């Protein structure tokens, strides 16, 4: 019944036998113990489970673990390097881009994708780019600020 998969997550290679029906997000959380990626809905609406798969943002609740076989994944745990926060993490911290923090890992991964597509995004582009991610706490304004802040840092612009 079970299928063998090999997945690289945040630079570490994992090999496991999984049930074919196991959702990728449950594989990441329960099998690998990387609980920074969250589950907020059953319907792919909330985006709390957003991760990067082969360089693109995906919702890990909408994929089976077996579909990630051989893939390169990045989760929130892999954003910082050698203890240095990623500019997106810095932006969220500096601009108060989070409150309860539950949507935040997915929100930051969505921001990573957004800034890959639009290195210098307008406010409208940011709001549009967050279409797949819900936050119930912040009212989004500080998230927009956080992403603008991160964009500036990533472009090497002076931090405001």
């Amino acid at each position, binding site marked *: 019944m079970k299928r063998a998969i090999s997945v690289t997550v945040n630079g570490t290679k994992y090999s496991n036998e999984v049930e074919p029906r196991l959702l990728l997000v449950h594989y990441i959380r329960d099998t690998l113990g990387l609980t920074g990626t969250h589950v907020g809905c059953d319907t792919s*609406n909330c985006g709390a489970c957003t991760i990067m798969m082969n360089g693109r943002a995906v919702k890990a609740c909408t994929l089976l673990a077996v579909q990630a076989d051989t893939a390169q994944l990045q989760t929130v745990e892999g954003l910082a390097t050698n203890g240095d926060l990623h500019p997106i993490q810095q932006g969220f911290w500096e601009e108060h881009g989070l409150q*309860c923090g539950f949507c*935040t*890992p997915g929100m*930051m991964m969505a921001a990573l994708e957004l800034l890959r597509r639009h290195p210098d995004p307008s406010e*409208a582009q940011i*709001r549009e780019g967050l279409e797949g991610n819900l*936050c119930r706490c*912040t009212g989004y304004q500080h998230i927009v600020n956080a992403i603008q802040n991160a964009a500036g840092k990533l472009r090497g612009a002076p931090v405001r």
Partner: protein
Amino acid sequence: MAVSSLFGASIRRREDPRLITGQATYTDDLRLPGMVYASIVRSPHAHARITRIDAAAARRHPGVVAVFTGRDLEGKINPIPTAWLIPNSDLKTPPHPALAVDRVRYAGDGVAVVVADGPYTARDAAALVRVDYEQLPAIVNQEKAVEAGAPQLHEEAPKNVAFTWKLAGGDAKAAFAEAERSGVVVRQRFVNQRLIPNAMETRGVVAKYTSGSGELTVWYTTQNPHIARFLMSVVTGIPEHKVRVVAPEVGGGFGSKIPFYADEAIVAFCAKATGRPVKWTEDRRENYLATIHGRDHITDLEIAARRDGTLLALRGKTWANLGAYLSTAAPGVPTILHGLILTGCYTIPNIDYEVQGVFTNTTPVDAYRGAGRPEATYLIERMVDLVAARVGLDPADVRRKNFIKAEQFPHTTAEGLSYDSGNYGPALDKALELIEYTRLRDVQKQGPKDNRYLGLGLSTYVEICGLGPSAVAGAVGFQGGLWESATVRLHPTGKATVYTGTSPHGQGEETTFAQIVADQLGLPIEDIEVVHGDTGAISMGWGTYGSRSTVVGGAAIAVASQRVRDKAAKIAAHMLEAAESDLTFERGRFSVRGTPDRSKTIQEVTLQAYLAWSLPAGVEPSLEASAFYDPTNFTFPFGTHAVAVKVDADTGQVELRRYVAVDDCGRVINPLIVDGQVHGGIVQGIAQALHEGAAYDADGQLLTGSMSDYAVPRARMFPRFVTGRTETPSPHNPIGVKGVGETGTIASTPAVVNAVMDALKSFGVTHIDMPLTPERIWAAIHKQSDKKAEVKAR
């Protein structure tokens, strides 16, 4: 009071590093050795008799540890109680069994629980539990539920009436008679639609029972762990000192994590019965069905006014839908937290109001962000606009005319509350200035452009916050105190741990509370740790809701800090061989007045307090203090929100052009955090005005049962909000704060609806019930146009 620069500083939150790196531990992140997983079988019917439950197949399923039904829990788990027994209301409290035994009363009512070795297995087996139902007619509308012949939910509550609560002040009858003679009376029906809280984290529980010690430990997504412990003890019979409740990281609540739910008791029962730690994590579908909903009022209201716009009296009745059972705070929300603030920030001396709480075959309704106050503010703020339109005055002028004046505080309202402080005019002026009200009114006079109509809306609100004085809690039937505890403990190295009985879950009090302590004791903020959410660590507390954490919990911390400082001063005086009265304390240093080189830091004093080699007579070792702060009154934040919208008459689409919020929450500890609270609240409130609404069909099926069907707002729906503040400190709060967690939700809903109605006035549309979807707006415009055309044709 504030000597350091920390009180009032927009410092970054201290809770964030763990949250932005994925290191925070939410309930569902916990895994204990030997842990098994629960799945709850829920009724698909809104109202039915259970004729048979066959769990044999589920029990046989590989990996299943146990299956329990309502019968298995009978006599072992007490009914789930309500904790707000409102007085003088003939409140009925029919029993609420944790698992239904012979009858289900809403779609989502639990009927059985399966425990298995994995979450997927538990769900597989739950699907194998066969329940035979005999369907009964269901009722979902509260107004129809009280009519003769409506399906009955509880024998104990004839006509489905849970309570009838009345409020009277002044002489409304005489005021209405006067208005009928020489003034105006405006009548309107309002529907405050049912909302679904949608905290991003669903509910969850991990329960572990150690039979050797008789101890139950519960990790639980709660806003109030001590209340949860108390109720867990009452429901399971496990004594309170043997129950520990921990609120790990909690992913938002908005009121939905205040109640004590049946599910928590069921999971605790499973842990005790199986001898294994049990985890249960609600899925989002369950969250929509089995976590409380909010609002759901139908109100007939009338207001009496003079022709000059002077408001005289309010009179009306609300039917409050309570759902199938009384949730923890349910009776108090549409009564005490609603009725007592109905006259808002106006001098309206006469009120006559009735609220009927009604059982229906729907998910229980309880406190959702604002809890009763948004409903009240919506009523009065809409009514003021309707009066303004009737007497031909600008809504801003009618508001200003009726404001309680600054010199009238403290002010006793017709409802009997004593507003502590306020200065409503400047907040209104500031909001009008920020939104450029006068200019936009001129633009509006030029008429629509491309069939898009400009509308301006205001909401001048006041709310009851900082819940609250315990004597008042008792007088209004809340089965708890509302004081708050704090312990400020300095360690030998001069670092501090602060324990609070509040339970923040996103509001940032690990930061703002540390700011208070840093300010009071002159400690570097990084030397202060704030601990919350664990009944094993904190003596007692009432939790986080009702904008009370900073107001009541923060005050407790300030008082405890002052006690620490007083004790430290005694020790410092002894060390410096000076009189205590000769000491000054600034930036963490005690100095002898006039000889500043003779000084000791608080850290040096703390070490001596612990070494205790030489303490002044009568002073005990160590340096810590506790406070149990019981406020003398509520606090009353206020402000004005102003909105400019454009309504497309061709499509009914509303575009938010500009949004201004001027809030007065007293002294501000951290402006960045306050802005965050305001923004989040505004979005929830706007979403009620324009987007959100739970819908049931006539059989009691929740049609908006997922995030695909229910309009949780998204980033692109909103403009950038402009926030401003005025500052009127609460006179009775030790740090002058008033609370800000709910202001946005309370203020924004009527402001937006008023703006849309203002845009539609040329069509003769005066009211549309929320949410103001394009369809409803378009239909309202066309209904009025059709009427006009009909009149012309005649």
